[in-house]
C-alpha cells in the first residue's frame, strides 16, 4: 500500500478555484473553464461531479489530480496548500497518492495487460518481478486472470476498461480520480469496477468521479453539479 490515509481525513480541497486556459490564437481572450468552484474529497468517501459537456468536469478532475494549477483560488492536498509548489513536488504527490481512470482507457498499444497495470509501479522503484506479481494479483481481482499477457488490442472493450481501472489502483492510491469510468463497460465489467472502487473507498481511499451513472449517484457522499461558467450558478454543491 502506498497511501494509508485514515478514513475521513481531508484528501483534496479546491477553494474558489478558477481556471482559464490560454487562447488558441494569440490576442484572443483566454478560455475560462471553471469559475469559483469549491470541492472537497475525504478519505473513504465518493465525490461525484456531474455536468453537461463543456462544463469543466475534466478540468476540475485535473485540478484535483494536481495536473494543473488554478488561475485563481487555492488547492490543498492532504491538508497542505500546493497551489504554488513546484511541478516536481506535485508530481511526486500525484505519483504516490493519486490514480487516474480515463474515459477512453488510454491503454498502450501492443502492451501486455500486466505491463499496463505495472506502469505506475515502475517509477516507484519496484522490480520487474514485483511489478508483475502485483499486477497479476489486481487483474485476478478484476476477473482477468488469464489475460495478463494479452496485449491491449486483444482485449474486449470491457476488459480494457478493467485493465485501466487496475492500472489506476496498482499503487493503492489515496485518491482515485475517474472520468466516466463506466462509459464503455458492459454490465458485468461495470459491476466489477464499481465493486472494486467501492471496496477501495471502504478501506480509506477517496474517490472523485465524473459520471452520470446511476450507481455512483446512489453511492456518492457528495455531488457537484457543474454548468458552463458563463451561467450564474457555477459550482453548486448539494
Amino acid at each position, binding site marked *: 500500500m502506498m497511501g494509508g490515509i485514515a478514513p475521513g481525513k481531508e484528501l483534496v480541497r479546491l477553494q474558489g478555484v478558477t481556471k482559464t486556459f490560454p487562447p488558441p490564437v494569440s490576442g484572443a481572450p483566454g478560455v475560462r473553464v471553471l469559475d469559483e468552484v469549491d470541492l472537497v474529497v475525504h478519505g473513504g468517501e465518493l465525490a461525484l461531479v456531474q455536468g453537461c459537456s463543456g462544463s469543466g468536469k475534466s478540468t476540475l478532475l485535473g485540478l484535483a489530480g494536481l495536473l494543473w494549477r488554478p488561475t485563481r483560488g487555492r488547492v490543498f492536498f492532504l491538508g497542505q496548500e500546493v497551489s504554488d509548489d513546484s511541478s516536481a513536488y506535485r508530481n511526486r504527490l500525484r505519483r504516490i497518492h493519486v490514480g487516474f481512470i480515463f474515459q477512453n482507457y488510454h491503454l498502450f498499444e501492443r502492451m501486455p495487460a500486466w505491463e499496463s497495470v505495472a*506502469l505506475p509501479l*515502475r517509477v516507484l522503484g519496484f522490480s520487474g518481478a514485483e511489478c508483475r506479481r502485483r499486477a497479476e494479483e489486481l487483474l485476478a481481482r478484476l476477473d482477468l486472470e488469464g489475460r495478463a499477457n494479452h496485449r491491449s488490442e486483444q482485449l474486449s472493450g470491457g476488459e480494457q476498461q478493467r485493465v485501466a481501472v487496475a492500472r489506476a489502483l496498482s499503487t493503492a492510491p489515496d485518491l482515485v480520480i475517474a472520468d466516466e469510468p463506466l462509459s464503455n463497460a458492459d454490465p458485468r465489467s461495470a459491476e466489477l469496477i464499481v465493486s472494486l472502487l467501492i471496496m477501495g473507498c471502504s478501506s480509506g481511499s477517496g474517490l472523485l468521479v465524473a459520471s452520470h451513472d446511476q450507481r455512483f449517484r446512489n453511492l456518492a457522499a457528495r455531488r457537484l453539479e457543474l454548468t458552463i461558467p458563463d451561467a450564474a450558478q457555477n459550482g453548486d454543491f448539494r
Partner: protein
Amino acid sequence: MVARRWTALVSLLGMASSNVLRFRLRTAVVLLCLLSAAVPLLTALAMQEGLKNHALAMLEAGPDLLVAGDDFGRPCAVPLSWAEIVRDIPGVVQVLPRAVGRVSIEDLPALLVGIGPSLASEDLARQDGSAHPEQTLPSLEPGQLAVGLAIARHFGLDVGDTLQLLLPTEGPERFRYHSFEVVALLDSPESPVWSAGLILAHFEDLQLIFLREDMATELMVYCREGYEERIARLLSERLGSRAKIQDRSMMEGYFHGGFDRRSGAFLVYILAALMISVPVLALAAGHGLSSRRREVAVMKCMGWETWEILLLQMLESILTAVIGASVAVIISLAWLKFGSGWPLSRFLMPGAEELPPFQLPYIMSWTPVLLVYVFSLSVSAGGAVASAWLAASVEPGKVLLGGEG
C-alpha cells in the same frame, strides 16, 4: 532507497526493452538504417585490417632490401652480375634475383614471376632459422608453371594440364603461343591473397619470354638484422645512381599509399552514411509520434516526470543502437567468414572481381567494433533527440481533455 533507485533504473531498462519490441516497425526501420551503414563499414574495416596485416606480415617476411635499376628516374631491370656485387657486401645473407612481368590470358590479367638462383654469402638459413617465403615455393623446371587459385579456377586448371600463353617473340609474327605444363597450384595458406592471380614460372623461361637474358627485374637482398642501413649505404656507393634501393620502410610506405587510395571508396560511403543517417533516423524515430505523445501524457498523469520519460527514450535509443551494432558485428562476421566480404573486397583488392576461391584475411579487432558501436550510438542518440523532446514535452492534462487522445 539506493537499492530502490537502482531497481527503478533496471525497471526503466526493462520497460525500454519492451518498448523496443512494442514499436516493432519503428525499431525495424531504425535497425535497418543502422545496419545498412554499419555492416559495410565494419566489414570493410575488418577486411582492410586483415589485408593490411597480411601484407605487412608478407613484407616483414620478405627481403630486407630490393635493388632495381634506375633509368631516368624510373625502375628498370638489373644485370644478374650485380647479384655478386651485392653478395660480397658484409652483412648480406642471401641475394635472390626475381623476374616479374604482366601477361593477359584471354583478358584475365596475371602476374608472371620467376625466382632466379640464390647467391648465399654464408648460410641459407636465416638468423631465426626460418626459411624465406620464396623457398617455400614449388621448384620448377623450364616449361613448367605453378598457377594461383584464382587463375586455376577461372580456366578450370589442375595439376597436369597445359596452359597456353600468348607471349612476345622476336620473329615477324611478334606474338606466339607457348605451352606450359601446370605442375602445382599456389594454395599456400600463408599467402592466398597475393598468389591468387600469380603464375610462377622458371626464371630462365621468364628471361626468354620477356627477352631479357642475364637480367632480372630486381634483386631481393636478405641481410643480417641491424645491417640493413649500412648495406643500403654501401650499395648506393658501389652501384651509384644506376641502382634504385628500397628498404622495408619504403616498401611499407608504397603499400600504405596504394592501400589508402583503394580504401578511399569506403570513406565516401561512410561520409554519406554519416550525413544521411541522423536525419533518416530522426524521421524513423518520429514514427508513431502522436500515439507516443498520448502515452507520455498518460504516464505524466501517473506521476512520471519529464526527465524520466526522456531517460526512458534515451535508453530505448541506446538499446536499439547496441542491438544494431551487435547484429552488425554478427552479420559482418558471417559475411567475412562465408562470403569473404565479396563484393566489398573488390574495392580493397585489385582484380578481385569474382568471389575469391579462398578465405580472405580479416581481423575483427576491438577498434573497428568500437567504431561501429560509437557510430550506432551517436547516430541513434542524435536522431532520437528531436522525437524524444517532442514526445516528452506533451502536457499531461490534455489526455483528460481529449487533446492527446
